[in-house]
């Protein structure tokens, strides 16, 4: 598998590690009433068959966290952004 790192260009997956779903958001509150949200964030997964946005870490390269959109059935990759940009968009409600 080749991942096109926005910084380093296409690199094989041996330089990366994957962490899973990037669409879940860490809840902002520590209020016990938000426990359900936390549980959802830490434990539950949509686990889709098909398009999936996921975190990858370019540990064997520039050490950036990336968000890769990939098909979990075909492994086709549609796009890669940095986790930083993704998070900022997420916080602005864009994703």
């Amino acid at each position, binding site marked *: *598998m080749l991942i096109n790192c926005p910084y380093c260009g296409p690199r*094989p*997956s*041996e330089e990366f*590690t*994957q*962490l*899973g*779903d990037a669409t879940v958001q860490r809840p902002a509150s520590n209020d016990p009433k938000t426990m359900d949200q936390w*549980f*959802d964030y*830490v*434990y*539950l*997964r*949509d*686990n889709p*068959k098909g398009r*999936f946005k*996921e975190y*990858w870490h370019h540990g064997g390269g520039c050490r950036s966290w990336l968000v890769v959109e*990939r098909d*979990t*059935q*075909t*492994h086709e990759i549609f796009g890669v952004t940095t986790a930083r940009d993704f998070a900022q968009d997420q916080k602005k409600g864009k994703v």
Partner: protein
Amino acid sequence: MRYSVFSLLKNSLSGHRNWAPAWREPTPKKEYDVIIVGGGGHGLSTAYYLAKEHGITNVAVLEKGWLGSGNIGRNTTIIRSNYLLLGNNPFYEWSLKLWEGLEQDFNFNAMVSQRGVLNLFHSDPQRDAYARRGNAMRLDGVDSELLDREAVREIAPFLSFDNARFPIQGGLLQRRGGTVRHDAVAWGYARGADSRGVDIIQNCEVTGIRIENGKVKGVETSKGYIGCKKLGLAAAGNTSEVAAMAGMKLPIESHVLQAFVSEGLKPYIDNVITYGVGHFYVSQSDKGGLVFGGDLDGYNSYARRGNMPTVEHVIEAGVAMIPGLARIRVLRSWGGIMDMSMDGSPIIDKTHIDGLYLNCGWCYGGFKATPASGWCFAHTIARNEAHKLNAPYRLDRFERGYMIDEKGVGATPNLH
């Protein structure tokens, strides 16, 4: 038709033209008492024990592909009960006990081979961890032995003792562990279930679950709607997808695990041996191929195939452990989809939906569980309550903070 030497000889006289099918190819009935989704090891054994232990025979197993096409047909066939934690150990030991009498029970030679499982260790902390594990087994009377380097050498003199990057210090041995001919397990259970009246329906994909007033009514399938009173999910790597049909979101991710087989060889390795520093485990099939595997590819996947980095990782570890492998050729690689749970342990439980039961989260260790999983799941479905053995495998354990995490890596399924 009972299988025996005599039936074989008798049939050979008639050119083997009179063998009865091992299972029927029935058309689905309108309704069943119990429908099991998934014709893998767990689904088939569940049906078998529902019929055999609970007398529930109006049962269908729905399989989207061919019988045994899932992980039961693609695993590295290792069975053992060398678990550490209370939630796991008694369950897997019960499974091993069932394996020990299985073939006579279902009249099919699945080649249960208790050739011993040896886990190597290479450091003091690893030794301590294995001592802890071995002691957990001994507490319940399960066989386990802690071997030192010389004792390991006696069993497997061909391991890399000399020029190793991580010298072998010893190993944990469970002699009752071993291997089983994987496909035959599916076939034996299918035949056993079928002969007790269970309908095994291949090429029948479940595409929807009908629920009314919080109660299961039936399933939509590629062969039309089929009603049922109870529905058990045993869809392994596809559990999330099927559970989503009932509106459930699970603590599960699907990951690919690869396995490999070498060209056929004369007897080369007698036991199952696992490496302690890289991910590698190997045994030799009765056909002569070295069957081996390693770690997950490390990314979510529903494709039953992996990529080269993992192939290299696994095989590098293999030769680090057994240098003699170098010139042996790897024949074939394939993959299976694991339902990786968030603590590495399975779930066998009722759900909040009346009549819907869940069996999933087997990660890469569910083959050895096949008998006990079916046995416990059948119990749970028949009695509508968990058996003592599967009581810890509750779905709500994550929410409540009672994980059964043997590896201690937390909610990171690709590390389990």
